[in-house]
């Protein structure tokens, strides 16, 4: 068994509302890839019978918490796992209701790909715009639009073509690199794992084929070297008395022993002596590897510092323009003091001004707003108490993102993408 050496991990989100068949689609992917176990199916069958359903409700597989099952809706991000011989998949299953934008943003933050479901009978809805906007805002590199319930429109090519045309017209206003379309019936399995015999007019790949083959190796930034220091490793043992290693995860670029580096904020320069993990030397370190780095010179470096290349440094500054998704019941107002978390650094910060808010259904900007309420998205200006070393989110999702924390309740209040 050596499949593990080459298998890649693909993280994707599924966005959809209660009725568009999202749970059925996930159930279908899990079932057809043989990732559902007998005891899980048994449990779901028993529950379905107890509730008096005529059919096995696959959404019971994905709706995990008691309160959700009582209400029959998904209220939080749930993670599902399945694998094929080609790839391993992590699904962030996020609910599509308007009040849960925060969950969609959460699921989207770590995704390589988003599946957006459209009911073929209904075409583009407000929520289609909302889901697509969030995918574009969070810079999910790949989007697959599944036009579902094709069985209910007699597998009509015209219906499919019209929806694709409508979607393309709308998507041109957004920033999504790679969009693909697949006509499916999640209920019957058409074009999910197996090719549909009912839609011979469709010559493209099935959904699973796309998931297995979409090119994700260049989704991460391998150009701008960024190494936020997580902690300093000093063993204090007789054997390794002088060892001083900088532990962290590479968030961009490719680091090699012998490379000249610059340390922020001190500005000192040095050269990489070794890159290792568990004592094993690493020749090239790139995102998202966790490694330990040693330098030729003794420099004072601590958590929150960043190791970069001298000729390619990030922005250094205290003023940020950020697209913010607000995630708390209490709305955000201007001049609010908060804790900001960026890479491995925390500091105090103030939201100086709300510049505008985006209507997520129409994509219109609303200026002159006083506050940002739960699940609203807007552009704000932030002043940090200490200098941050950052890139634009579109350039690097890790060094371009922040979260805001309430200094009193410690809750995570907002997710921000640096412009």
């Amino acid at each position: 068994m050596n499949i593990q050496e080459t298998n890649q991990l693909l993280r994707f989100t599924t966005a959809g509302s209660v009725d568009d068949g999202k749970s059925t689609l996930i159930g279908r992917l899990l079932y057809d890839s043989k990732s559902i176990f007998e005891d899980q199916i048994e449990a779901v069958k028993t529950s379905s019978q107890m509730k008096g359903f005529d059919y096995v409700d696959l959404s019971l597989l994905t709706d995990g918490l008691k309160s959700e099952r009582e209400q029959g809706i998904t209220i939080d991000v749930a993670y599902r796992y399945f694998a094929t011989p080609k790839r391993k998949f992590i699904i962030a299953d996020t609910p599509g209701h308007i009040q849960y934008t925060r969950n969609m943003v959460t699921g989207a933050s770590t995704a390589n790909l988003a599946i957006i479901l459209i009911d073929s009978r209904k075409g583009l809805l407000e929520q289609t715009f909302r889901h697509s906007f969030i995918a574009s805002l969070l810079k999910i590199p790949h989007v697959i639009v599944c036009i579902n319930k094709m069985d209910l429109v007699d597998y009509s090519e015209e219906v499919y073509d019209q929806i694709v045309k409508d979607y393309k017209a709308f998507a041109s206003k957004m920033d999504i690199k790679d969009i693909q379309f697949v006509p499916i019936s999640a209920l019957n399995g058409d074009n999910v794992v197996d090719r549909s015999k009912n839609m011979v007019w469709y010559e493209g790949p099935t959904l699973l084929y796309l998931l297995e083959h979409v090119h994700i190796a260049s989704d991460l930034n391998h150009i701008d070297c960024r190494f936020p220091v997580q902690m300093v490793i000093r063993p204090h043992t007789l054997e390794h008395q002088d060892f001083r290693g900088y532990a962290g995860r590479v968030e961009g670029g490719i680091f090699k022993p012998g490379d000249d580096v610059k340390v922020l904020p001190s500005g000192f320069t040095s050269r990489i002596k070794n890159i290792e993990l568990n004592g094993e030397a690493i020749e090239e370190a790139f995102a998202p590897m966790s490694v330990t780095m040693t330098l030729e010179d003794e420099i004072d470096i601590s958590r929150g510092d960043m190791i970069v290349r001298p000729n390619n440094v990030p922005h250094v500054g205290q003023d940020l323009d950020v697209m913010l998704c607000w995630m708390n019941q209490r709305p955000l107002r201007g001049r609010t003091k908060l804790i900001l978390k960026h890479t491995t650094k925390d500091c105090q910060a103030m939201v100086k001004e709300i510049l505008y808010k985006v209507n997520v259904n129409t994509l219109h900007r609303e200026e002159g707003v006083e506050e940002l309420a739960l699940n609203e998205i807007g552009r704000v200006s932030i002043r940090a108490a200490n200098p941050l070393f950052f890139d634009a989110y579109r350039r690097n999702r890790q060094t371009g993102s922040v979260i805001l924390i309430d200094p009193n309740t410690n809750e995570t209040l907002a997710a921000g993408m640096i412009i």
Partner: protein
Amino acid sequence: MGQYYLSHLKELEAEAIFVIREVVSQFEKPALLFSGGKDSIVLAHLSKKAFYPSRIPFPLIHIDTGHNFPETIIFRDSLVGELGVKLVVGSVQESINEGRVREETGVNASRNALQTVTLLDTLEDLKIDAAMGGARRDEEKARAKERFFSHRDEFGQWDPKNQRPELWNLFNGKKHNGEHFRIFPISNWTEMDVWQYIQQENIALPSLYFSHQRECVVRDGVILAKSEFIKLKPNEEVQLMTVRYRTCGDMPITGAVESDADDLDKIIAEVATTRTTERGTRADDKRGETAMEDRKKSGYF
């Protein structure tokens, strides 16, 4: 130019190491909850890698129900010696003796629920503010929504409807006095990932996980090991079976599977074709549809 991407195991490893290092950076007194099962053994291995050449900078905590497999305890002690790490044992028997909990009675009596009290007492005694565990999201539906950094109130309770959103790899470990976090660095691993990783890294495991002969009782479809902790019902008989374990809990509640898989290759082949979840062999999860969620809310893992 080479191919700049990681295999899924390398990516999962990098993620887990990032989380473990984040715990040590953000908390004052972290600890690793060590059950002796494969997941916590993998966690100990990842912790070693994360801080090398330093020793693991936190203790292992083992909640000893007194109903452990003897193999687990022998393995635990040798691993602790090898890693040079501190071990703290919280004893459920002591909690019973002190009257903190009451032992269940009846043929299906188990100490599984009792260990929550011992666990919370132990965390409080040591003032642990971050307890890492090897739980995975693929294990059970209540766990599918668990965060990496899972906040617990001053009573150790989990509030699933009020979880902090977790974005990118920015983990918020801020808390008030008396509160603590449960942290799950291998959240995103599946049972198969764990086995493949054990093989890739050549990690030693207790002998229980490999096929062996054992005296067993079959009760409600679950194969239980004969032991001093299990009372036989009148019609039950002990039989010699060729079995192995997929999880490693208490003797009276952990079911074995019939298996000839006596090495990692065979186990991986078996996991790849098996049609039941590993917790399907756990009697503690069969106590009702939301058994796991209810236990988690009260402070279980």
